[in-house]
């Protein structure tokens, strides 16, 4: 389901291998989007805040995995909206314009148009959208305001290691392959993600979702129920009109 922008589609390439977990990206995002700090508790990991939140559009997920050489291996991966080409959030949203596609292929949101029904979070394969204090949607918007003006996303600009790179999606993917990354997570999933990940190891090791998909009930609703509702309404209206002309209204006299 490639959209019209596939050709000049922009993307962020995450290379977790070179991420040092400094979280400058988290700070840059907060600063650009003027998001407040969040009070959190120490829960035994450096991952903080523990999850995406209305004031945290991106987080570094820290996972500790067993290792032979060291007591433990520490893996860092940037988690944020994937800007799916086939986006579950956009599919289910009942309010036009609340979630929209930018010309760069990003999925941005319009706070004023969101009606706060919270359906999108349930249709997102990556559990991304969050709600602010007024119940309005918030999430990473690929810095649509910056990239529209020819700048890099704030998180990318600040990343000191190149773990986050922004650019032409097709170029980013082919460079990563040339650099020897065997798995490009998100290359094909959901029509191709706008946040792609370059891995040499199993993405699962880094806590990535296997085979992400829009919930099947949402797909069924979109492809079957919606057309059925229109056809059903059209069908009964047509049937009533035909009945009226062919059979006509009930007449008392005809009754025996």
């Amino acid at each position: 389901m490639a959209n019209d922008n596939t050709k000049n589609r922009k993307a962020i390439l995450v290379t977790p291998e070179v991420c040092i977990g400094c979280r400058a990206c988290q700070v840059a995002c907060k600063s650009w989007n003027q998001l407040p700090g969040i009070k959190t508790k120490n829960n035994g990991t450096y991952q903080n805040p523990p999850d995406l939140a209305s004031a945290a559009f991106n987080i570094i997920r820290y996972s500790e995995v067993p290792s032979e050489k060291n007591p433990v291996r520490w893996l860092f991966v940037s988690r944020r909206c994937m800007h799916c080409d086939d986006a579950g959030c956009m599919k289910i949203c009942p309010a036009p314009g609340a979630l929209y596609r930018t010309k760069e292929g990003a999925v941005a949101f319009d706070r004023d148009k969101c009606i706060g029904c919270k359906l999108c979070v349930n249709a997102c394969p990556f559990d991304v959208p969050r709600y602010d204090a007024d119940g309005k949607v918030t999430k990473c918007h690929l810095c649509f305001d910056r990239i529209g003006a020819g700048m890099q996303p704030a998180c990318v600009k600040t990343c000191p290691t190149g773990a986050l790179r922004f650019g032409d999606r097709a170029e980013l993917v082919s460079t990563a392959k040339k650099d020897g990354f065997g798995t490009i997570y998100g290359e094909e999933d959901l029509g191709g993600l706008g946040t792609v990940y370059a891995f040499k190891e199993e993405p699962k090791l880094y806590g990535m979702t296997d085979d992400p998909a829009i919930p099947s009930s949402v797909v069924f609703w979109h492809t079957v129920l919606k057309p059925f509702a229109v056809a059903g309404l059209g069908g009964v209206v047509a049937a009533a009109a035909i009945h009226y002309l062919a059979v006509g209204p009930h007449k008392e006299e005809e009754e025996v």
Partner: protein
Amino acid sequence: MTEMVRKSSGDEILNHWVLAVSCILLIISGYGFLFQTEAIGSLFGGFNTMKTVHNWVGVVFILSLLFSMRHSFKDALEYDEDDRQWFKVAGGYLSHKVKVPPMGKYNPGQKLYYLAILGAGIAIALSGFAIWLVQGNQTLILISHLVHNVSFCIFIIAVPVHIYLSTLANPGTFQIMVNGTLPLEVAKKRYPKWMKAAGKM
């Protein structure tokens, strides 16, 4: 002067109008959500207002639907041999030539319609409340979203049929929802068993 018989009581008529208006408002606004129809949104003054209206009219709708059980539930559960025969001639809806068996106050088509609306109405209300009020339970919300939309399909097909049959297709019927009465002579023809039970025939 023609003698009239009362088919619907005052509270029944009032409740039917509350039910009908709320249901139609919900169908229209629901259709606007389903297809992100800007024109329907503007009708309600924007999608934000439309959501508030949809949610609260939903409350009115379910209360009215539950109240309607007082008038319609018992009848809707009782079917006899004539009712079974009624289906064989498709209620006489498809041709005026067939002989329709004698009916009571409501024909089986109407009774089944009531049960369908009652079932789909309770389902759409419960699922609607879940989508509206529950947070952080993805399975419940996705099931509710599906149930809400399946019930919507039932409504969008059944309600227009009901409206057509009670207006254009059967002249004189609409009046029952205005003043609750119809001429005795008509009632004797349409609902002979009910009239017999009432001692009018």
